[in-house]
């Protein structure tokens, strides 16, 4: 039995580990963990246990996809006859008409139902009139128009999405890296600007985020969507890391901040003054928006 860790209840610690602690209590426990490292060690151990258990018992569909696991391994929940029955449930038909459909009251194992999928109900052929024919003829044209109208929006969002994806990948690769998170470790913004200048086209100045409690750790060159991008790494009092990746673009339209989630990592991306910005971190949406606003206000307008 675990001896009750001092200064925090086991229930709260377990809830923290299993991600079901309210945000307020979570923050309070994180503060305590900073104060008392033994709590953090215990929580870290349990987090590692969770990860190890999830890795030891992988999703059978994924596991069997590589090993050819057969019917059991398919992504859908049930075997063929069950999938058919689910369809009938959705269509409002009664499942109980099939033989051996319900489980026995004593819990004995069920014989597999042998019923084949029902043929779709016969329906009267719709009468074709002029309006229906016109609709049928105009449908491809409307589709093409919609495709053309939507393509611009789709492609522009693809572009910002690609940059946000690249920035998130860089964050995952470097920010959590204990050995070499940055290529140049400095808290001096001018030094980092000078280091970026010869390596990146039109490097944007590294913003000062000290007002938000973030300390600059350093920077590195990371891949952007099209070009090498500047990657500045910050850290707060709780040692949570935030990264700002900036890539120069050829006269992009100015866009508002858009937040994308990738697991626990949030990426706030926007375009401004000839650059694409992506702020990445493990923080709340509100905190990310506030940081993004601070960075936008500090950037030279152009």
């Amino acid at each position, binding site marked *: 039995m675990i001896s009750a860790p001092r200064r925090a209840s*086991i229930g709260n610690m377990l809830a923290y580990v299993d991600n079901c602690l309210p945000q307020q209590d979570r923050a309070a426990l994180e503060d305590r963990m900073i104060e008392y490292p033994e709590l953090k060690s215990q929580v870290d151990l349990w987090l590692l246990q*969770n990860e*190890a258990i999830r890795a*030891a*018992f992988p999703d059978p569909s994924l596991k069997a996809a590589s090993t050819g696991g057969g019917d059991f391994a398919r992504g*859908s*929940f*049930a075997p063929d006859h069950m999938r058919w029955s689910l369809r009938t449930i959705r269509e409002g038909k009664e*499942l109980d008409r099939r033989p051996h459909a319900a489980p026995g009251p004593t819990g004995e194992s069920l014989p597999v139902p042998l019923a084949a999928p029902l043929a779709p109900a016969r329906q009267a052929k719709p009468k074709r009139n002029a309006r229906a024919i016109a609709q049928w003829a105009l449908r491809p044209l409307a589709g093409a128009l919609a495709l053309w109208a939507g393509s611009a929006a789709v492609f522009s969002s693809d572009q910002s999405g690609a940059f946000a994806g690249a920035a998130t990948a860089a964050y995952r690769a470097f920010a959590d890296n204990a050995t070499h998170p940055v290529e140049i470790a400095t808290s001096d913004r001018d030094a980092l600007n000078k280091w970026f200048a010869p390596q990146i086209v039109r490097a944007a100045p590294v913003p000062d985020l000290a007002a938000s409690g973030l300390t600059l750790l350093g920077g590195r060159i990371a891949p952007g969507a099209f070009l090498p991008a500047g990657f500045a790494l910050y850290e707060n009092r709780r040692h949570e890391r935030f990264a700002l990746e900036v890539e120069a673009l050829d006269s992009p339209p100015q866009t508002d901040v858009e937040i994308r989630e990738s697991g626990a990592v949030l990426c706030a991306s926007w375009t401004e003054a000839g650059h694409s910005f992506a702020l990445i971190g493990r923080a709340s949406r509100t905190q990310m928006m506030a940081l993004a606003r601070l960075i936008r206000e500090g950037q030279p307008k152009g």
Partner: protein
Amino acid sequence: MININATPGRLVLTPKYEAADNTGGLLRRFGLAVARDNRFVCDERSARVLVENLSRRALLAARNGEGPRQGDPRLRLFSLFICFYRRHVRLAAAEDGASDIASHNYPSGADSSDSASPLERAVRNLPLELRESLLLVVLGRFSHIEAAQALDISLAALIDRLARGRAMLAAELSQARAPSPHHLHRPVLQRSAPYLRLIK
């Protein structure tokens, strides 16, 4: 997502549920982890057959309105699965002559020669009540309140089981001295001296 249609208690599974929600995959993952207990189910194939059978029965029972009335339908499905699995184990244990299925710590042995990792073996060696609590939370990703509902126990009992399960897991792994994952064996709470020594 799963939703309940106009008939109370009737489970309706939308196409999105089948394709994207992957509740079935999650249930099978949980089921396989719970069902391989080194005593009644010792090989992968038997476990798969058992889990498929039990999950099918749980789905049909959920559709027929069995299980807890309130709460997430996904939770109801897991709750029914656990209920059916316990019934299965009880029957198997009765055939075996064992009396207490919940607290019995099943001996490993049949499984020791297979390719299971030390962690898998340690999880399988946990008593059923601890194993299902831990796996429901870790693999099923249910909150503690939901897991307590699914197991039909109080929140305090669930927390006690989780703490005991995690402690037993750590103890068993450190006992086995398994090489991977090595960090799980570290007696973190007991460590008093720092790792780095100051050398003058």
